[in-house]
């Protein structure tokens, strides 16, 4: 169904002109955040741009985000996905706290991805907490895009 210019018309989808111009538009919204104290965000920026190039709207919040800041931004921005980049090794302290706060805000359906330097042995514990995917350094950004697209398709 097609929403006409927010004026309450529901039209069949076989009108190419309307489809292009007035179809109610949904974008995948992603929060890319760097929790913890490590001081460079090149990797996070590369991911942010790759997701933008895949047509997503990426809210980038910069360095040194506390778990509280991340949960709050995710809530206000109504994101579908949170991408966390952690290089400091503090992931086993930060991620449980972030998951707890998301839960408290009823944001359980937000997809959480973690990138950075994560030892293999920590991955099962992270997945148990509800993390949807873990991506090491040098992951092909297309793999992350594909993960998001397929996970969100299955969620609906």
């Amino acid at each position, binding site marked *: 169904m097609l929403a006409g210019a927010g004026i309450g018309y*529901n039209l069949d989808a076989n009108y190419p002109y309307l489809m292009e111009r007035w179809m109610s538009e949904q974008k995948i919204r992603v929060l890319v955040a760097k929790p913890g104290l490590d001081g460079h965000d090149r990797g996070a920026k590369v991911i942010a741009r790759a997701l933008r190039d895949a047509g997503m709207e990426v809210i980038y919040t910069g360095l040194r985000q506390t778990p509280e800041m991340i949960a709050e931004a995710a809530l206000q921005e109504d994101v579908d996905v949170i991408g966390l980049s952690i290089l400091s090794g503090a992931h086993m302290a930060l991620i449980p706290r972030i998951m707890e706060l998301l839960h408290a805000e009823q944001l359980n359906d937000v997809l959480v991805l973690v990138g950075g330097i994560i030892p293999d042995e920590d991955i099962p514990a992270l997945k148990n907490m509800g993390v949807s995917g873990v991506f090491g350094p040098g992951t092909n950004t297309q793999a992350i895009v594909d993960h998001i697209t397929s996970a969100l398709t299955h969620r609906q």
Partner: protein
Amino acid sequence: MPREESISVLVEQALNGQRRALARLITRVENRAPDSVEALALLHPHTGRATLVGITGAPGTGKSTLVNALARTLRARTFTVAIVAIDPSSPFSGGAVLGDRIRMGDLAGDRGVFIRSMANRGSLGGLAAATHDVVRVLDAAGFDYVLIETVGAGQSEVDIARTAYTTVVVDAPGMGDDVQAIKAGILEIADVIVVNKADRPGVQNTVRALRAALDLGHRFRLTGHHGSLIQTPAAPPPDYDFWTVPILQTVATEYTGLDEVVAAIHQHGAHLRESGIWAERERQRIETELAERLRDALLVQWTAAHAPDALQTIVERIIKREVDPASAVRALIDGNKPEK
């Protein structure tokens, strides 16, 4: 948690101050979801109380940093503040990187503040309408101030600035030889000018150039004459319309000069009300919006009543010079097929 809550429940929760509901409502309205019409109808009686301030200016002049400092200053006076920060979408992918929150970390943890990033989605003229509606949702939710940040470049930004009662144009020294606000052609819409980064060398030059441009604007208008722009004396402004655009200096990173910015916004608001311009502008704004929505609605209605490729067919005929656009429209309105 299913993501599709009923719209009336979302509205009720948002009006009761539930932030998650507010965030989801904004998404529905921004996406122009079919049920957003119902939401806006339910919200409308609650709108009209917030002070809407537009913050615009060239890239990198410090708009987000200023919005952060302005919000902190308003919070210190116990006002609640919502922020809508708009960045361009990529014309290639339709995606966007929205980075204004980077400068607004100081506001985290304050429940009297709500920040929302928006991509302009490159929609054909639809940006102003979408922003209007998102601002309405925040207004209805009871925020005292709604601050709207846009990059000052181009007509759609000017249109958004018109959503606001007071438009603050931000400039900064040391960004090349040109004064950015003049270059971007957005000086005309300024109610208050802020020269930010006043800790940088060259502030006085920037202030002087802005002052000169403003004075010129007051005394002259640029008029087209045989293809070139000439200066003609402007009609003197009627008394009630007299507002001297202040040029203020701030160091947003250090919260310096913000009291003066808040004072200027208040004074401008008082001026608008006392002079009656407030009511006049509101009427104009609604009239423009109504006309735009009606135009959209009529086009949707017309298209829905005709074959899916009806417009395309006429486009082809115009390209072949079989008919011209004006006659084609007249024929369409008359309910006839455009004839040769």
